[in-house]
């Protein structure tokens, strides 16, 4: 497209640098092109990964795979124990982290008066988000297993996970609390309500959406976690009851994926687990968006 004949310009003075208009037009076109290209790459990568895993993995996600445990004797692979281990860990870490996180957020938003204290706690939570999972795994091993004397198992793994998901719960609960208008609080207090009563009956119920969103995000993090669980929860592939698994080596779905693929070369099992994980991720993402939107609407 010819530059100066297709567009009308007003400028006639000659201090326009020659070829500048051409270079300028080119710049704009190239920029536009690159913006689209890189976005295409990003989205394309996602579509490729989801597609590749689902295509190669769904066919191996059979009922036997999902409901039995691996057996050397019969030479079969079943990931039921790993599904259960992941569920156990979700249960226990949320049981611990949720009250702690909500409590911390309530303190920060409703009770705290000392600015420095608030900054310190928020800084600590922020620091935690930057620490790599493998470091959490190391510390988890040092503290929960060496120091506390726990055995490798769901309990040690869950406690480690608590450290990882706590910041998420604190942050999302805090945001949710911040979005509640002070009028609600004042209304309750003006009726003679004590502070804790006000928080319990007015603030927390209104913060439910945010807490749910935070929980979904935390669960997503738990499901995807692997490095922190290697030495705290272990590599065990046997099925255990919740109670027994607390102190027995229990591989989560992610760790099982690693074991089957890297150490045993069982690619079919690997793809199956990957497909399952992908489906769970998609589901959780959907749920988080849904609840997140509900929160925004308020």
């Amino acid at each position, binding site marked *: 497209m010819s530059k100066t004949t*297709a*567009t*009308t*310009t*007003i*400028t006639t003075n000659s*201090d*326009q*640098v020659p070829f*500048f*208009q051409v270079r*300028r037009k080119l710049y704009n076109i190239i920029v536009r092109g690159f913006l689209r290209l890189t976005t295409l790459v990003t989205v394309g990568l996602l579509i490729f990964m989801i597609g590749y895993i689902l295509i190669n993995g769904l066919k191996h996600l059979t009922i036997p795979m999902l409901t039995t445990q691996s057996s050397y004797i019969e030479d079969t692979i079943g990931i039921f124990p790993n599904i259960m281990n992941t569920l156990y860990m979700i249960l226990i870490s949320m049981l611990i982290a949720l009250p702690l996180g909500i409590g911390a957020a309530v303190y920060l938003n409703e009770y705290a008066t000392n600015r420095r204290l608030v900054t310190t706690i928020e800084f600590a939570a922020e620091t935690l988000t930057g620490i790599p999972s493998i470091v959490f795994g190391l510390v988890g091993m040092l503290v929960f297993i060496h120091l506390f004397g726990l055995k490798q198992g769901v309990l040690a793994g869950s406690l480690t996970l608590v450290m990882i998901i706590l910041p998420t719960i604190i942050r999302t609960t805090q945001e949710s609390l911040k979005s509640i208008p002070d009028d609600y609080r004042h209304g309750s207090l003006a009726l003679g309500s004590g502070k804790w009563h006000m928080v319990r009956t007015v603030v927390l119920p209104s913060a439910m959406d945010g807490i749910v969103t935070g929980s979904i995000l935390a669960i997503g993090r738990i499901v995807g976690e692997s490095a922190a669980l290697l030495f705290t929860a272990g590599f065990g592939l046997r099925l255990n009851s919740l109670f027994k698994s607390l102190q027995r080596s229990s591989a989560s779905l992610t760790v099982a994926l690693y074991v089957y693929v890297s150490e045993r070369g069982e690619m079919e099992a690997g793809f199956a687990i990957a497909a399952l994980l992908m489906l769970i991720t998609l589901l959780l993402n959907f749920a988080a968006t849904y609840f997140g939107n509900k929160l925004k609407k308020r």
Partner: protein
Amino acid sequence: MIINVQKLNLWYADNHALKDISMDVPRNQITALIGPSGCGKSTFLKTLNRMQDLNPIVRIEGEVWYNGNNIYDPKMDVTDLRKHIGMVFQKANPFPMSIYDNIAYGPRTHGIRARAKLDAIVEKALKDAAIWDEVKDRLRKPALSLSGGQQQRLCIARALAVEPDILLMDEATSALDPISTGRIEELVTQLKKKYTVIMVTHNMQQAVRISDQCAFFLLGELIEYSDTSTLFSTPTDKRTEDYITGRFG
């Protein structure tokens, strides 16, 4: 006449915001656009440099003739148009850069890279905007460190740096204190020697003080347009009279 507007209509989606506006703007004079809130004067001003293009729900019909071209011709190079018709906004909006870079932004965008040339342009623009003496020793300092009134004069200098023919001012002093306002009014009166100024103002006294022509807008229509003294002493339309005597506003 430097600008000739013919039957300009504008819609914000279904809202017919400008109705059949036709007017001629004389060269080297200050033309004021007055009227109550929401009457369309700012909307109209923004059609003159095609800033309405930025709003996706806007639809425009009609013609605006400048320098022998209809600026709404699809072949018009908008970036070139805006080099010739500059704009100063209600709230001063200097870039978060140094004073120098703010002024040099326009010229650089239009291809001037030589250092010496830019230096000269920056100095001239700042002088034309009557702010050179205040900032000549701090050109590298952030523009945001200036006071509100200085920032607005900086924005005027920035607009002048690309050497426009016309300067559009959209309530440029409404956010400023009376002293800064006075300085800018003085500046604008000087500017008309070299430039044409079209200014939107909700301050009738300001229009009386400095404008040569005055256009009264109401509900998207151009009600009356004549030289300022006539419009304010003997308005021909009753609505104009009601507005300037304060019966509504």
